[in-house]
């Protein structure tokens, strides 16, 4: 096997990932030359850490978009799970593993409700999740009664910031993300469920005719997205050590997650999903935003930088993809 061919094949199949890694590394190197502190291990670690919560949400979003849906309700789901787990942990010292199960449960149930509305009542997903966005936000207020979480048990803090074993200099959240990414990649690439959701994203009528229970797949995918958003809420709680009623919604994480998924190479019209791209996209965003601080760019321009980044990467991806399709036809 020629290595050159191998490289070519990797470039062809994994072009988006290679490009994102390349651009991110280039940015890190350039910034490192300009500002040596940028490449300090500490800073690199926090750029990684800072992208974990968004990555988790965006992984779920990637599944939904690959199925040709969209999920705006991830933001309140993140907030709800952070609030519920946080308040219980704060007041009653809820054991971590129960919080774990609880956050997943909340996400699965409310996510599945989204899926049910989309599949059973055939309401467009953007409308459904726009509606449940309001409803789930309300749940946060009802549950919290306007209070907030300001301290969490040590175990939670450890999960959000600590290390698994002293000799491994990778923080637990990053490990968690890697595990989730591996599970998601397996789910999408190597299970019948994953391939079925791509079939639904390509052509739902054809998928139905091929014997795929389209409704069930839809419900499951929204449940999965809800679960990941909700789990991200727990990680958010553990990482920041706090939760307010506007966690998630205040940061517009629903829009961020869509942007990151698209930057990562998942087309808005579905049919394909690039999970590694999504995580790399989220990391890229984190690096760009940190770089802006190091370059002393005034804070008000950060969101403009984000906007330009979305346009540039999506545009570059489209170009490449069109070129590849043309090549395949010829």
């Amino acid at each position, binding site marked *: 096997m020629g290595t050159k061919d191998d490289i070519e094949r990797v470039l062809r199949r994994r072009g988006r990932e290679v490009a994102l890694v390349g651009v991110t590394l280039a940015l890190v190197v350039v910034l490192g030359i300009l500002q040596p502190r940028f490449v300090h291990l500490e800073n690199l670690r926090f750029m990684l850490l800072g992208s974990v919560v968004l990555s988790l949400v965006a992984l779920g979003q990637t599944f939904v978009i690959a199925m040709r849906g969209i999920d705006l309700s991830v933001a309140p789901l993140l907030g709800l799970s952070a609030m519920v787990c946080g308040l219980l942990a704060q007041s009653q010292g809820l054991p971590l593993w129960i919080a774990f199960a609880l956050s997943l449960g909340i996400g699965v149930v409310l996510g599945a409700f989204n899926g049910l509305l989309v599949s059973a009542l055939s309401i467009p997903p953007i409308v459904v999740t726009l509606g449940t966005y309001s409803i789930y936000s309300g749940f946060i207020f009802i549950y919290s009664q306007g209070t907030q979480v300001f301290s969490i048990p040590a175990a939670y803090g450890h999960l959000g910031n600590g290390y698994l074993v002293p000799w491994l200099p990778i923080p637990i959240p990053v490990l968690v993300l890697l595990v989730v990414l591996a599970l998601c990649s*397996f789910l999408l*690439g*190597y*299970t*019948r*469920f*994953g*391939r*079925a959701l*791509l*079939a639904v*994203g*390509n*052509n739902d*009528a*054809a*998928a*139905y*005719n*091929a*014997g*795929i*229970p389209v*409704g*069930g*797949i839809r*419900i*499951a995918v929204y449940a999965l997205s809800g679960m990941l958003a909700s789990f991200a809420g727990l990680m958010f709680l553990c990482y920041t050590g706090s939760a307010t009623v506007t966690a998630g919604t205040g940061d517009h994480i629903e829009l961020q997650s869509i942007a990151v998924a698209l930057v990562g190479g998942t*087309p808005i019209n*579905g*049919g*394909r999903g690039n999970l590694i791209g999504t995580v790399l996209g989220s990391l890229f965003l984190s690096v760009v935003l940190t770089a802006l601080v190091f370059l002393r760019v005034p804070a008000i321009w950060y969101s403009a930088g984000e906007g330009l980044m979305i346009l540039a990467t999506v545009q570059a991806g489209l170009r490449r993809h069109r070129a590849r*399709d043309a090549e*395949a*036809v010829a």
Partner: protein
Amino acid sequence: MSFAQWAASPGPGVGGHEGRIYRACNIGKRFGPVTVLRDVDATLRAGRVLTIMGENGAGKSTLFKILAGQLRPTSGHIELDGQELSLGAPSAAHAHGIYLVPQEPMLMPELSVAEMMFVGHMPTSGRFLKRVDWRAIRSRARAVLDALELDIGIDRPAKTLSIAQLQLVECAKALLHECRVILFDEPTSPLTAHEVETLFGIMRRLAGDGYTLSFISHRTEEVMEISDDIVVLRDGRMVGAAERGAFDRASLLSLMVGRELRTVSRRTKSHVTQELALSVKGLTHEPSFRDVDFSLRRGEILGLAGLIGAGRTEIAETIFGLRQVDRGTVKLGNTDITGVPSHDLIRRGVAYVPEDRGRHGAVLPMTITENITSSRMERVRQTAGLMSRGHETEIGAKAVRDFRIRCAGLDQTLLELSGGNQQKVVFAKWISTEPRLVILDEPTRGVDVGAKEEIYELIDRMAASGTAVVVISSESEELVRLCDRVLCIYEGRIVAELAGEEITPQSVTASYVGGSQARDAEFEKAGA
């Protein structure tokens, strides 16, 4: 089937029996108050091809959907090898080894050919952690395509395949799922004559191997060529069922339409004038076609014959300003219209009726009137920028009368109309602009026999009124019936020009496959 059951099910259909007999017994089907099928019996036998014939709306597709488990019959039942079957979903049919190849297989644009073949039936491996077995998928896909001698790359994205290739991949899927009963829902309409041959070759081989096949068509020549048994449906009733030998083409036609139909013949009168309507010189749009020269007079009907993909549609779209002109000129009368955009051409009296009604011809969820006026809204009387409703309705009503569109009201949407009536609306949309030049792309595709004749008369009337007409058609009989002159296009070039009595089904077909050498090239291409 519930989601849980599906996730746990073992995979592809069981199948495996040699030589199956599949039978529809006294099938009846109602949609609400409308009866679509009554008391239909049909028997599919191993090693034979059963053809279901009938006009559009006769119930052919409904019968197929029942056989394939997509619909449940209202009365009657189906039997496989003497055992009564109850099929709740297409997947249940697959499990019993019954497979329906749709006319235009639905595309999964982003999937690879190999994966598309296994959608819904992914083989898995691993004892505890069931995972999709990509190695098996690729090797089995390759094997089946090889068995059918199809040269289609299994890693190609599905969006790069042609309709014919998709159909063949569907056929391969049936084999892959070890389905012994394969139903083809009107497969030939979107195919070129050559692709039809390829398909029939495969069908014959399958029949020879003992597969049970059935096929829908309303093209009598094809039916006579491929069928062993024939069932003719009319208005949901069975009006004839026998072996092929019991019918001839005329009897099939008369059974289908319920009256004697005169055989298709050349029209008797020509309306060609001396006035030049269109002249095309050296027109090129790479890679679709190059150096196309022809001219057209008012009142003349010019046919463009050729295979699908030969570049006919592209020529029409380029003249109509939808594609970029690489080289060459187009003149309308004496004015140069090269590169003029379509909205401008419409004003100058050019009309193009595209082939695909649903995709290009008409907005199906809009009303009849709205569709008819959409080709040129400026002709509706306007005051202060607002279109006069009354005047618009007048235009619509006139068109409905002139084109004999059958509808319950002008504000019916096209979704509520039959295919033939939809096509008439598309015609009305363009012809009511009173164009000097009309380009018709496959004007009778998906239209039943009765409506076809009406459309031919319409075209004839147009020519009589001095309009120059270009007809693109893959049906040689249609060209013979209509045209004063026929240009044969092969691989983007005009390879022959036939006029008057030279135009016969044989001559047209022979010239557009570009001679024997070209035919061989075409064979290779079809597989590629």
